[in-house]
């Protein structure tokens, strides 16, 4: 069951330009969290911003203290306010919320596809896959430029093979992650079965979804959406799903997601 906790800031590290790693102590949330779930953080004190901000649970730290980490990027007022929270301040934290990833079945190779700050959801998944003794995943990670690629150390330390892409070509393949994903899916000798786990901006998810459906590879997408409440009551965060005879169907990203099967949603 989710809880609402005034979570103390234990650490707050800068990870290069505009990226931060926030460590919060919230045992009740840490205990229940699963990879792919999120929390709603109240970034400031007053009404600017008014609403909480959804953030993936990046990691649950080992140990009894019940600490979680949030990896985020400043994109506006809320994330800027959050970045100003000093160690010792408390951040109202509601969670864990939503449905996490389904772990790939045994013998399946997980392909993690991250775009930009979408990387934040994957450390937890990597640890969950390891804990469940699943095959080592491959990480395909794209960002605007080299300096926007963060948390590489985490994956390197866990021997996760990485294929990087940058839009400006400052590191790895020049272009989008699909330039790496496509040849992988096209290979006749693909080897063991694979399953894609993707998180990133909607245009990226759209592209990954199409490629995965085209290749018949199972694919889970972690969606983003504007989330006023995060707990399923406002009906504001919906995503369009394949219509039935009565017209379009909408599902709540916070409650039925944020992870959906590629075939479940229309992007």
């Amino acid at each position, binding site marked *: *069951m*989710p*809880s*609402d906790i005034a979570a103390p800031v234990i650490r707050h590290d800068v990870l290069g330009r505009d990226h931060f790693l926030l460590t919060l102590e919230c045992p009740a949330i840490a205990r229940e969290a699963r990879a792919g779930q999120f929390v709603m953080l*109240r970034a400031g004190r007053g*009404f*600017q*911003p*008014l*609403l*909480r901000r959804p953030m993936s649970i990046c990691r649950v730290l080992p140990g009894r203290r019940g600490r979680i980490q949030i990896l985020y990027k400043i994109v506006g007022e809320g994330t800027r306010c959050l970045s100003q929270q000093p160690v010792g301040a408390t951040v*109202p934290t*509601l969670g864990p919320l939503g449905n996490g990833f389904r772990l790939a079945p045994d013998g399946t190779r997980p392909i993690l596809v991250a775009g930009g700050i979408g990387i934040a959801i994957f450390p937890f998944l990597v640890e969950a896959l390891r804990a469940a003794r699943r095959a080592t995943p491959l990480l395909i990670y794209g960002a605007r430029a080299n300096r926007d690629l963060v948390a590489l150390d985490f994956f390197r330390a866990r021997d996760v093979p990485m294929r990087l892409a940058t839009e400006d070509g400052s590191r790895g393949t020049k272009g989008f992650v699909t330039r790496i994903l496509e040849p992988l899916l096209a290979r006749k000798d693909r080897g063991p079965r694979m399953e894609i786990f993707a998180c990133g901006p909607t245009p990226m998810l759209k592209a990954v979804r199409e490629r995965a459906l085209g290749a018949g590879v199972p694919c889970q997408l972690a969606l983003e*959406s*504007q989330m*006023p*409440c995060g*707990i*399923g*009551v*406002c*009906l*504001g*965060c*919906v*995503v*369009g799903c394949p219509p039935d005879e*009565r*017209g*379009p*169907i*909408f599902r709540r990203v916070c409650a039925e997601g944020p992870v959906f099967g590629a075939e479940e949603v229309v992007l």
Partner: protein
Amino acid sequence: MRRRADRAPRGTVPRVRAAAGRPRKRGVDLSVDLGPLRLKNPIVAASGTFGYGTDFLPYLDLRDLGGFVTKGLSLLPRRGNAPPRTCETPSGMLNAIGLANVGVEAFLSEKLPALRDCGTAIIANVFGETQEEYVAVARRLNGAPGLAALELNLSCPNTEKGGLAFGVSPPVVRQVVAAVRRAAPDLPLIVKLTPNITDVAVAGSAAREGGADVLSLVNTFLGMAIDLETRRPVLDNVVGGLSGPAIKPLALYMVHRVYREVGLPVLGMGGISCAEDALEFMLAGSAAVQVGTLNFFDPTGSVRLVREIEAWCRSAGVRAVRDLTGTLRLPAGRPPAPCSG
């Protein structure tokens, strides 16, 4: 706690008589009456911000609330508008959910039974695209076990009147309220006014003439947001309803006006986020208040308000919270001035 509202008027401050022997902390009577509807305290969760009640069970005890209003119910289930449906604005938010809901039948068969003995007043919010739909939903809810009252949402577009909201036309308000009154004679009838009208008191009087027991106000203000980069409206629906602290002064004035002009019990709302806000609405004439957007950014905020109101009353020497309603002190001899500037 911030102190913004004035202390209670002197005349209403009761002398605390200590019981013989040791002094006893007096409980504050939080119960309030809205016409035929009695609530255990003046905080009610607003329609569209509290689901069907059960979603908040992880966070609060429903018994601590005066009541809650369900998401608006229509005759058939509705799926609502395409996304994006919401957008944050300074100290507020716009929503264009499109009145998505499970429909009155699923509410009665699935949602209401799960709430049996929840220990708080359950108020069903009703809307329709035609007067017949309002009547049909109300008739279906009349006599449903466990329902405390109906709240009629008059902000819904009237498909027979070119999509203009029912609530903007006083004759239409009178008619639809009277029809619902006949269809659901057993339940207290709250009529929720739209603020998107020149004088909300005129609509309030029409609702009274139609047979409303209580007036609730305000629903959201029409507004929009534009994305300069794409040069498109942010909401797929183009227009949405503004709620949250941004609308509080507008709502407070409308409550004041309706309380003075109409003569029905008022259930006020609009941007309430702390006990002081709620108490200000009560001074302006609200018998009880609803909290909406607060439930989104602070899911336990509603019950916190109940505790804070009790504490405020105790420190201000107010023995019964209902004594505060309408005790606003107006400047003597000055006629109400509608102009600003």
